[in-house]
């Protein structure tokens, strides 16, 4: 019976893991919130670490294209808004890094993966900001897309992530509004200003539609993320919401949407777009976007140049602790 006994223990253990996963999934279905110390399937933890790290890195790398225009903002009003927005994005990165650490990974480890290129961040930040109008487009479209995604994530199953999203959502509306104000002014400005806005819109429209990820049938993570209650809506659903909202907005601005196939489908009540140029998306993800190298180099340089500050802070803390111990 030795063999049988062994076999049975293994099966019981396997079943209990299976049972635990079943119980976990029924908690997800009941819309319960999962907290850090609670049991979770390893896949759930892995998916969260991957997704939250990418999200945090996107906030951090996302400061670069906008930071590029701080010194050249056309007025003091625009400059203080842009500085405040870029500072908020740093804060967003910190909220999410703090949340990902609750899953038992250290911040240093997570950040190292950004710097060594093994972790991803949103492909959108690998595009350059070549005109002032780009700052308007980023606020309106890129933050607009982020708001749609983050409003959903604020109801996700993992407590620390959901709470970080709530904090972020409170700040995003200002980001979008300041961008829309820039676009609106340019569109009501001189012919040169209008042309600048249109040229910028032409470059950002398609890449922002790609921010929602691959079409549902091609996305390898969506089904699992939805089963885990991390995502509550599919990529295509979110993308459609963005399109319906912004086709109208673009028309109000007087901008032409760079999509000859775009039409309003009476039956579904939705705007239908032409084919998304996914080859471009894959190229950018592979590292061949216009700014991939530049973005990573900037983060590595900042990390190196900040090293002495971290070392000095540690040395100072040690010295002070020793002095206090003596007293």
């Amino acid at each position, binding site marked *: 019976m030795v063999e049988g006994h062994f076999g049975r223990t293994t099966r019981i253990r396997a079943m209990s893991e299976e049972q635990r996963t079943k119980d976990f999934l029924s908690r997800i279905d009941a819309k319960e919130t999962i907290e850090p110390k609670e049991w979770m399937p390893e896949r759930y933890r892995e998916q969260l670490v991957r997704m939250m790290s990418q999200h945090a890195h996107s906030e951090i790398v996302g400061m670069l294209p906008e930071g590029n225009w701080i010194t050249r903002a056309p007025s003091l009003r625009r400059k203080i808004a842009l500085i405040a927005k870029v*500072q908020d994005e740093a*804060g967003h990165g*910190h909220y999410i890094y*703090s949340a990902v650490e609750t899953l038992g990974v250290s911040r240093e480890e997570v950040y190292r993966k950004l710097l060594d290129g093994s972790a991803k961040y949103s492909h959108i930040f690998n595009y350059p900001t070549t005109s002032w109008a780009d700052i308007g487009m980023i606020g309106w479209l890129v933050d607009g897309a982020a708001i749609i995604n983050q409003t959903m994530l604020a109801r996700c199953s993992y407590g620390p992530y959901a*709470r970080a999203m709530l904090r972020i959502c409170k700040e995003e509306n200002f980001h979008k509004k300041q961008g829309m104000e820039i676009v609106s002014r340019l569109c009501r400005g001189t012919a040169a200003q209008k042309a600048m806005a249109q040229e910028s819109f032409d470059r950002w429209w398609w890449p922002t539609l790609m921010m929602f990820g691959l079409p549902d049938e091609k996305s390898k993570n969506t089904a699992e993320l939805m089963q885990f209650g991390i995502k509550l809506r599919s990529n295509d659903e979110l993308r459609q919401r963005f399109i319906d909202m912004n086709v109208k907005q673009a028309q109000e601005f007087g901008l032409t949407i760079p999509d000859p196939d775009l039409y309003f489908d009476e039956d579904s009540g939705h705007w239908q777009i032409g084919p998304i140029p996914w080859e471009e998306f894959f190229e950018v993800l592979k590292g061949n976007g216009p700014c991939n190298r530049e973005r990573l180099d900037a983060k590595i340089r900042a990390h190196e140049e900040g090293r002495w500050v971290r070392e000095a802070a540690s040395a100072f*803390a040690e010295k002070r602790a020793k002095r206090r111990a003596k007293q």
Partner: protein
Amino acid sequence: MPDTDREKETPLWEVFVQEAGAEAHQHAGSIHATDAELALQNARDVFARRETIKSIWVVPSHAITSSQPEDEPALFDAASDKIYRHPQFYKTEKASDND
């Protein structure tokens, strides 16, 4: 990225903020800092940049003792069988508005 980069992990601190008008401090998240003074400064920059905050606490994360999920049923049993803990358990002559 040089692989000599094996920096010490800076200590982790839990941040609690009290919003103006709110009654108690609430957990906001965590930050890293080498000492308490810097922790307070970093907590301010990350969690009190926008809102009207009255006060911030920072606590070394390792100093917190927490209940474990498996203890919870025993620890947090609502004791609903102890009806004498509720005012409805007690009778007075008049079914008055104090009931």
